[in-house]
């Protein structure tokens, strides 16, 4: 053990703080669940591709879970993310279809721009006009869904060649692949969207941990009044948290389009609820101040795994999926409050 020079006392290993504790529980549960699936379901779960598919299918969900985690740590909520995804997907699909020479970069910028616009507007209303975030983002959700339908009532399928090439582009990892029956090696494939999602998780983690903005978001979520007294610009911090959240929703829309290249009014329906559930399962408290995107990532993976397990089991039906999600959420919230209660009661 290294000696602490300043005090001369041995450095004490700190107990996990609330955020770390809840995140650790989530990760353990995910690992246990996945291991159980590998043992009892066998089949697909024994292949690395199964895990990669989990990432591929849930990439957009991972991104909006990060988006939700940011605002929830700050003590807010954003239920417009699903709507923003559907609007982005539709707008980008129509834009790509408008001409075959459309650049993919401008499409990406369009997606980010739509998200940013929603973030700016909602952030302004919530931070500076002090309207309840739930109401503002509920209105945002209706607005985005409505605009999607106005853009096109019918589904728009993307036929843009270069974009479809991008959709097909996959990161191939040979050593994680498996040998098919005919002896050919099939490498594990990771979509670009999944790579983007993983990068978002890392970047948002670093942002929350190592930047002033990130720490201020934790502070305003922990105690807004205190944060104000500590000299933090509460309004600006909250504003930025919604701007980030909105922009990430736009990015999630683009990632969605890369996974399923078609616009549709019911795209990502209720995905905001899945994102909230993922964040909570990942250890983010609805009351704010506690949470972590690594946890939210594993939260999303837990929900994704449940979905896979049910799809592969004889119970293949959507209501089982819903019930399992609900039960999981309930279990986690109970677990969290019990743990936090025990911790915080011990002192008195």
């Amino acid at each position: 053990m290294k000696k602490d020079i300043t005090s001369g006392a041995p450095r004490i290993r700190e107990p996990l703080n609330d955020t770390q504790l809840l995140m650790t529980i989530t990760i353990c549960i995910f690992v246990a669940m996945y291991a159980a699936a590998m043992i009892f379901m066998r089949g697909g779960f024994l292949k690395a591709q199964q895990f990669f598919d989990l990432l591929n299918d849930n990439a957009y969900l991972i991104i909006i879970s990060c988006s939700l985690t940011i605002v929830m740590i700050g003590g807010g909520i954003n239920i417009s993310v699903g709507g923003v995804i559907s609007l982005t997907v539709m707008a980008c699909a129509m834009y790509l279809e408008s001409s075959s020479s459309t650049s993919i970069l401008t499409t990406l910028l369009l997606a980010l721009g739509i998200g940013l616009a929603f973030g700016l507007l909602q952030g302004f209303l919530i931070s500076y006009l002090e309207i309840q975030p739930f109401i503002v983002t509920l209105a945002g959700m209706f607005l985005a869904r409505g605009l999607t339908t106005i853009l096109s009532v019918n589904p728009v399928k993307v036929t843009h060649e270069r974009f479809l090439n991008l959709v097909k582009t996959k990161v191939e990892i040979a050593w994680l692949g498996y040998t098919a029956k005919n002896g050919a090696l099939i490498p594990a494939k990771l979509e670009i969207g999944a790579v983007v999602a993983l990068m978002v998780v890392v970047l948002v983690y670093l942002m929350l941990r190592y930047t002033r903005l990130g720490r201020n978001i934790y502070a305003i979520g922990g105690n807004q009044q205190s944060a104000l007294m500590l000299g933090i610009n509460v309004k600006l911090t909250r504003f930025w948290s919604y701007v980030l959240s909105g922009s990430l929703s736009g990015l999630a829309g683009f990632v969605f389009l890369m996974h399923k290249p078609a616009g549709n009014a019911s795209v990502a329906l209720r995905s905001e609820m899945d994102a909230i559930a993922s964040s909570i399962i990942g250890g983010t408290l609805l009351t704010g101040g506690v949470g972590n995107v690594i946890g939210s990532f594993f939260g999303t993976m837990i929900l994704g795994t449940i979905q896979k397990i049910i799809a592969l089991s004889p119970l293949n039906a959507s209501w089982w999926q819903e019930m399992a999600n609900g039960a999981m959420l309930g279990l986690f919230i109970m677990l969290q409050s019990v743990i936090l209660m025990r911790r915080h009661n011990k002192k008195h």
Partner: protein
Amino acid sequence: MQDDIILTMRGICKVFPGVKALSNVDFTLRRGKIHALMGENGAGKSTLIKVLTGVYSMDGGEIRIEGHDSPIIIHSPQEAQSYGISTVYQEISLCPNLTVAENMYIGRDSAHTVNWKQREKKAGELLDSLGIPARPRQQLASCSLAVQQMVAIARAVDTECKVLILDEPTSSLDDKEVEMLFGLMRELKSRGVGIVFVTHFLEQVYEVSDQITVLRNGELVGEYDVEKLPQVELVAKMMGKDLNDLAELEQFGKKSVPGDEVIYEAQELSSTESKPFDFRIRKGEVNGFTGLLGSGRSESVRAIFGADHVTGGKVKIRGKDVKISNPHDAMKNGVGYLPEDRKRDGIIADLSVRDNIILALQVLNGMGRPISRQKAEEFADEYIEALNIKTASTETPVGSLSGGNQQKVILARWLLTHPDYLILDEPTRGIDVGTKLEIQKLVLKLASENMSVTFISSEIEEMLRTCSRLIVMRDRNIVGELKGEELTQANVMNTIAGGERQNA
């Protein structure tokens, strides 16, 4: 001596709409001294502090601080900080979810990224040098309240700090923790920081302070050296009573003669807000709890009524063991309670006078047995007349009545349930003199009809007039009980101050 002065406030005035909160107040702070700012609630302590920290702008007067030749004007707490004035408030304004080190530096760094190692090292050094038992990486919520308070102080003094304001820092600490805090205050004092210590705990003032400034009703009473101001005199100055003027109060109405039967008895009763205490009241007795504001008198009666979470003790009503853990239990056992804060805990402003009056009775009857409209109307009329409530009709929303009449409505609410024991916490606060007298007379009348009443008031005269027994509290403990001939103003003040009979 002159050189030692680091802060002077001269002729400070502050007017709020309709109220003069501060008029012509002076305050002087010297280097390396602890200066207590004393006064009852509403005396202007907080207003003065808020003027000094830039939360309020002042309407007159000047502030000078060492190192600046001309008077300074402070617009915001941040600006106060830049002059070297830091404040630690009663409510700990730190973020419990962050680490100790973060709480010490967040909101002050201008850098866009956080260097955790450096921040934690700096925090560790400061904590060590001040002897604060906290680790930089510890989550703040895992520290005791006292340590959290000390972390807040460490944050405040880390910047170039000349003046440290501690606003009621000890109100939620236990004795041991208070000692720890005092150790830190003495350490800072030896470093030359001037400390403004706002508190209502008398003994603590005498333990650490060098000087005392007393305010009353927004005016300066005086500045004194601690050695030259005996505790009893301090109390007299805070309350604005002249100790030599012991003129007996004229007696009005007859005091009640308590019966023999003990209606309510508590042993070692305690709640989350109050320390364990014993208490009993007889049939037809009027007793009072007195003490300075914050001495724990309201907390004690709230424990009796089960309004705070009761943590221990035995309660007997008419000799029978009962369990009172919430207000409903108390009501079922014939106890009524008129709360201290009428607006928050008493009236339901948007409901009519009638609905407010029948509220307690309705609760006692239970949801399944509603009081008929006609019956409610009768009850309301009866009490509007009996208590002389001035209201346009029984339909008038209670929020539109005057304070005194609102208070009468709440009284009516309890009288309607015919309690055996009625607790009145500050029933006369903020109401006109005529109504005050009416309420006092009513208390005596109720007692003569064999109701037991606990009466609490900030005005000692009122209590001397109505109570046949007074329980005196200081720093959340019962420190004395006065009855019969002992009930004089001088005795009460002596007991509050600590019993030493030191006259000026």
